[in-house]
């Protein structure tokens, strides 16, 4: 089922025409009503009239998380605060949060894109949606809530936490769609298993999982344990909340609702726009938001865009599963590498503690990647050739994951730095 066939299956030219019209409108609205944008556009000498084609968007400056934070609390609003009917914020773990303000039309838009998402996951009015995303300032709970009501499903607004109650309600109410973070879905599966509640005693058919990065391996695991179809949802509070993009049953990328959120991919270093199919940082522009339009927001999420018609019938551009954050991205000999890929490779080797450090250097014009791994008793032997074999095995696993040759050094246990919270994983000696 497709919630809004007209919008989700538009022909390319027709869609581009609509996107351009909406882009011109939002740029004008932002310039005229938000002092931040007026100043930012004036500084680079661009005005709303310069947007004559879609790729003219590249003339506009980017908006970063810091820009939004500096405008705390209401500096980014493009309407009178009296016209704002709801606010949400980011968690603000790294400073002041970012505030997102919604007009009534913005809430309707949010309901619309979430209705499309839930329908894409197979939901309709017969479903009972157990919504374990947190209700409150966090966008997850209410976003799903508005969409669920729009499609006429029964929403169970249980919010996050209280796992015993979640498990009980899931059985008693016969919840058919589960919405939560993928890690919470894993945890629920564990608790259900501990209590001896097999998937046959549940009525789950689909899960709409998001708000954190996850992998295909996790998908397989969740699907196997909960006997449901696990689908990826993507969104950001800065843009609207959940409902920016959603996976269809093909599970081959997430459809971005690009009639409302215009996506671009840029090289996070040169900040140049990249053609479709290239891997880079996702940049989003809200085409229709009233309360708080956001122009060229740097999401820091790394993905690839793939346009075209999907088997499901939608022509909404697809983005790949998020594979990393541009903040931790490394470019080695032109290849994008994330510490998480190296960690994944290490986790595949039995007996290895994934304590590692990546050292990037450029000794002779060419980048070299050294991965230091802490030795463990399982990997060690009295024989040199055995230890060398272990080292080569780790090198091969990493090569399979990132496509680059690396040099692995085994170091003594507890010798790599551990800091409170985020471990220091990367040392870049290249002075780029």
């Amino acid at each position, binding site marked *: 089922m497709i919630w809004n066939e007209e919008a989700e299956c538009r022909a390319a030219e027709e869609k581009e025409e609509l996107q351009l019209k909406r882009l011109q409108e939002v740029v004008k609205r932002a310039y005229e009503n938000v002092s931040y944008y007026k100043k930012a556009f004036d500084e680079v000498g661009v005005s709303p009239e310069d947007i004559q084609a879609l790729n003219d968007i590249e003339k506009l400056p980017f908006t970063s998380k810091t820009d939004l934070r500096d405008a705390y609390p209401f500096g980014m609003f493009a309407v009178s605060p009296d016209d704002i009917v709801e606010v949400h914020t980011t968690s603000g773990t790294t400073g002041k949060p970012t505030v997102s303000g919604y007009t009534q039309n913005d809430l309707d838009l949010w309901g619309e894109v979430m209705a499309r998402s839930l329908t894409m996951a197979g939901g309709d009015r017969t479903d009972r949606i157990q919504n374990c995303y947190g209700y409150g300032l966090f966008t997850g709970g209410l976003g799903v809530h508005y969409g669920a009501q729009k499609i006429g499903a029964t929403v169970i607004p249980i919010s996050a936490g209280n796992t015993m109650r979640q498990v009980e309600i899931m059985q008693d109410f016969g919840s058919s769609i589960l919405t939560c973070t993928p890690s919470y879905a894993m945890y629920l599966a564990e608790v259900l298993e501990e209590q001896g509640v097999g998937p046959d005693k549940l009525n789950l058919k689909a899960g709409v999982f998001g708000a954190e990065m996850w992998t295909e391996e996790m998908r397989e695991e969740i699907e196997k344990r909960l006997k449901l179809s696990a689908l990826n949802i993507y969104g950001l509070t800065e843009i609207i909340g959940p409902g920016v993009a959603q996976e269809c049953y093909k599970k081959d990328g997430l459809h971005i609702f690009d009639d409302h959120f215009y996506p671009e991919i840029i090289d996070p270093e040169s900040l140049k726009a990249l053609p479709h199919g290239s891997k880079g940082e996702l940049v989003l522009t809200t085409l229709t938001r009233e309360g708080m339009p956001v122009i060229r927001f740097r999401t820091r999420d790394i993905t690839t865009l793939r346009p075209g018609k999907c088997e499901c019938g939608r022509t909404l551009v697809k983005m790949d599963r998020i594979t990393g954050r541009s903040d931790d991205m490394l470019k080695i000999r032109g290849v994008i590498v994330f510490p998480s890929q190296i960690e994944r490779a290490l986790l595949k080797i039995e007996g290895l503690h994934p304590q590692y450090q990546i050292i990037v250097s450029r000794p002779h014009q060419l980048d070299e990647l050294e991965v230091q791994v802490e030795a463990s008793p399982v990997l*060690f032997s*009295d*024989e040199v050739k055995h230890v060398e074999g272990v*080292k080569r095995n780790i090198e091969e696993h990493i090569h399979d994951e990132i496509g680059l040759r690396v040099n692995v*050094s085994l170091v*003594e246990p507890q010798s790599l730095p551990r800091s409170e919270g985020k471990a220091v994983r990367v040392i870049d000696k290249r002075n780029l």
Partner: protein
Amino acid sequence: MFKMKLKQISVFLENRKGRLQKALEVLGNANVNIRTLSIADTSEFGILRMIVPDIDQVQSILEEHNFVVKVNDVIAVGVPDEPGGLEKILGILNRADINVEYLYAFAEKKVEQAIVVLRTENIDAGIKALTEGGASVLSSDEVYEL
């Protein structure tokens, strides 16, 4: 037969200045009596191999200090301290088609003989060949008592 096997403890050494010294300092502070040791060195790491009477104690001391260790069996052979002694031993193993992974030796003044520590891929096969070939395979007690 198992009594003829000698326990060896190996320690992983990162290729960094002072690591061997650190390991020996830890053992020295604990008054560990090291009968003999050898070091296998590559450009990237080292393996310190030791024969010590109280292997369990040494293992726990080293592990407490975050060293990676491994205990395994080796063979000790008494070799007359004279030219050609070692060659004879290797000849026996060669004829039995047994590969020596590594070996190291230490001289023992008290008994006028050298002790050769040998690592063959299959320890039992190594001991069998050596015994049958007339070599003097030493038990662990004999080595510790020297």
